[in-house]
């Protein structure tokens, strides 16, 4: 049975396309209009409003809250100040990634963790013997993401707090149009953006207030199709697309480590013991088996493939999520990895792809070959390894 988020009365009324997707048991709008492109443009030009309530949320409180966080996550929770948030991974004993998500420090001894996979059991299991209270607060809050260059101005019109003071990956408790909320400057679009968390009873009012004020800024409600394009441009990984959770994977081969996913920067080997540390230390010493890279597809070469069929170049106007073979050679003999998601990026005017390849092919500017199917025939199209994020505007941090 599909559950409804606290915003459903509002999102359902607006979802002209009737296009919904299941997300953690909730109905989530794929796109509101018949086409996603206005929603995508809103993210980069004005603002998009997303219902992200289906994310799992956990409250961790108590004397040992920092200790528990530090045992679970790969980054150092003790360096996370009150009012700050961390983007971090957590792993199993073998150093394989379970999930990535946001850990926010609400007070000295209190954290809120938002995750894509259910994590209650994992937290409880690791809290054995600790003085800490763990609560699944997923249903206790609704959450919105307001993402785009005008998101700050929109929120500022509705709150007395100075939004200019809220730094990237920080949060504050305030009132939005008199309603108590937590506003966190994070997001999944790589743009200036915020997440707003409120109690379910207040959610409809929050939505209405944002929609009304946002109208002046051409904000649009936006769905998962537009979001997926934006997150690929931002070089952000998606669970069950770019990687699988070690806690759900049925087979060893499906598991990956933070090093393989380009998340090595969030593995803090200097801190005290955390789950997976030993395995990750070993992996760091001998190097990961694969590396996640950004690819830019050579459009002139792709154009030539289409020209064989007297067709003009056709670009993926929606993102794709798939396992696509990657080769070191154009003859498709030497398989070196897989592409996991890709999109035409209207903002950087490039066809960008996230891929996982053998380490020797991960160096910037390496030319490798991506399988592309044109007219039901497979071709190897050259692509170049480039830096991620593909799109990284200064306003994200400013």
């Amino acid at each position: 049975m599909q559950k409804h988020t606290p915003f459903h009365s509002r999102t359902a009324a607006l979802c002209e396309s009737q296009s919904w997707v299941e997300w953690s048991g909730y109905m989530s709008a794929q796109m509101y209009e018949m086409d996603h492109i206005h929603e995508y443009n809103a993210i980069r030009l004005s603002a998009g409003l997303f219902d992200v309530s289906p994310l799992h949320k956990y409250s961790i409180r108590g004397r040992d809250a920092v200790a528990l966080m530090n045992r679970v996550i790969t980054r150092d929770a003790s360096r996370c100040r009150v009012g700050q948030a961390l983007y971090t991974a957590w792993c199993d004993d073998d150093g394989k990634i379970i999930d990535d998500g946001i850990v926010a420090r609400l007070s000295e001894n209190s954290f809120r963790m938002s995750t894509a996979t259910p994590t209650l059991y994992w937290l409880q299991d690791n809290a054995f013997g600790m003085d800490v209270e763990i609560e699944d607060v997923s249903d206790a809050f609704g959450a919105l993401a307001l993402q785009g260059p005008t998101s700050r101005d929109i929120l500022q019109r509705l709150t007395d707090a100075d939004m200019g003071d809220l730094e990237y990956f920080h949060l504050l408790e305030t009132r939005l149009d008199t309603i108590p909320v937590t506003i966190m400057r994070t997001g999944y679009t790589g743009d200036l953006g915020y997440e707003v968390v409120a109690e379910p009873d207040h959610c409809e009012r929050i939505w209405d207030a944002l929609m009304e004020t946002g109208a002046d800024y051409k904000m649009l409600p936006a769905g998962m199709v537009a979001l997926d394009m934006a997150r690929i441009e931002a070089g952000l990984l998606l669970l069950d697309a770019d990687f699988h959770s070690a806690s759900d994977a049925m087979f060893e081969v499906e598991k990956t480590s933070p090093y393989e996913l380009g998340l090595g920067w969030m593995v803090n080997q200097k801190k005290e013991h955390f789950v997976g540390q030993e395995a990750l230390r070993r992996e760091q010493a001998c190097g990961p088996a694969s590396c996640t890279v950004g690819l830019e597809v050579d459009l002139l070469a792709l154009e030539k493939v289409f020209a064989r069929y007297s067709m003009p170049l056709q670009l993926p106007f929606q993102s794709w999520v798939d396992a696509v073979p990657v080769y070191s050679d154009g003859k498709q003999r030497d398989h070196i990895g897989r592409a996991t998601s890709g999109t035409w990026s209207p903002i950087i005017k490039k066809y960008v792809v996230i891929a996982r390849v053998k380490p020797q092919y991960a160096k910037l500017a390496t030319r490798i070959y991506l399988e592309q199917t044109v007219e039901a025939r497979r071709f190897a199209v050259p692509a170049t390894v480039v830096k991620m994020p593909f799109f990284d505007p200064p306003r994200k941090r400013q």
Partner: protein
Amino acid sequence: MTQSYDAIVVGGGHNGLTCAAYLAKAGRKVLVLEQRYLVGGAAVSEEKYPGFKYTVFSYVVSLLRPEVIRELELAKHGLQIVPHDMVWVPMENGDQLAMYADPASLREEIRRHSKRDADMLPKFNQMMYQLVGAVKPILGYVPPDLTCPGFRGARTLRDFSKHLQNLDKKTFQQFSKIMTMSADDFLAEWIETDVIRALMGINGIIGTMLGVKSPGTAYVLLHHYLGELDGAFTAWGSQKGGTGGVSDAIASAAQSHGAEIRCNARVEKVIVKNGRAVGVALENGDEIYAKTIASAVDPYLTFRKFIDEKELPEDLVSAIDRFKFRGSSGKVNLALDTAPKFRGMTDPAFLRGMMAICPSVDYVEQAYDDAKYGAFSKRPFIDVDIPTMVDPSMAPPGKHVMSCFVQYASYDMPEYGNKDQQRDAFGDAVIDTLSEFIPNLKDIILHKQVLTPWDIEQEISMTEGNIFAGELTLDQLFFFRPAAGWADFRTPIRNYYQCGSGTHPGGGITSGPGRLGALEILRDGN
């Protein structure tokens, strides 16, 4: 101190900047001279009223060459074009025509007007697609001299004829027709609904002093089909912050390669010594020297203003004097207190697209009849764009700017008095016409800017205010642009080149002339 450059580009319009960017990218020391305080020429965004940014002259983008976007990495430099997904036309009887981008919605809408047209429109588009495929490669060619094509010219002609030979028999017949017929006659062979023909025919007359029933306009229609956005056939869109953003992006690309841009520097003359261009003289008396001079301004300025007549062959002089500029369109930019309410518009989301005031073929032809003897249309064709419906950066929150491209208006309209009176009368006619379709318009106007062709010439020196630096009619395209024998970006003066919209592939924000001109300069080793 006298500075010297490898190349000076005269005119900081989008083509001048493009040319400079390519030359600088190739390692040349380049200086761009722009007469105004900002670069962009006809692609500028200016705050004419506090808080409101107008896309002053040009307003939409489609023909910008994808290779330029790619080679100059314009996206990195701020190019951000948002596609329009539809065009909406109000009809005199209160009905509407909503040309959706989505094929299913479009079909249903056309069926409301004509079941036959609902079937025919996709067939028409298929046929146009074939023609575009055959003609489009021309955009990247350097036009050969037909009388003396040389090796490269002969290859170009052979390539082109090969593309035409690839057309099937039926499409080739259509090709012959489109090269000769009027836009409306051509369309009438396919489409029966008057309002659809009016809307589609408009593409045949933009920027020319011809009517939709004038022979030769069908080709201009095809020219406007050559555009694309991200590979999407004939799509049009708006640049974030107005078309000035396109110029800024190209300028930024040019500067990143080391090009120098000097504003408030009006060129008076090109200095010619022994048949060779050696520098330019500015209005303020300064002289700047360079090995190569590239003119990105229109052919009249390039040949008749900057160069003494005695330096040029007689046939070129007379060809340029005969070159048709005769600006035919004006612009009205409005700052609005709220979004306008169009009579009969069933969905306010239509405001995100273009609104075209062209309710019938006769309406559009009548507009031409009014103007062809030196006047403006009493009820003109108006192409309305409200960029603030998607781009909040151009006006304060909740407010709007409305860009109105207006055709027809003549360069001189003496029956209305002096130039100020002409402008006022023209502006009033536009607002009155718009008010027929937007009843609340006069109550929400905060500021207006009115530009007749004469004003366009005054502001940005485009001769007679022609938006394409010379009409885009067949007799002025490809090997005739700007003059037979001088369509390959070169001039009779050594080291003096052309790279503006008065050369192939012509006007509109294409960057084609700027790129091809630069490549020819480099080809000559300059």
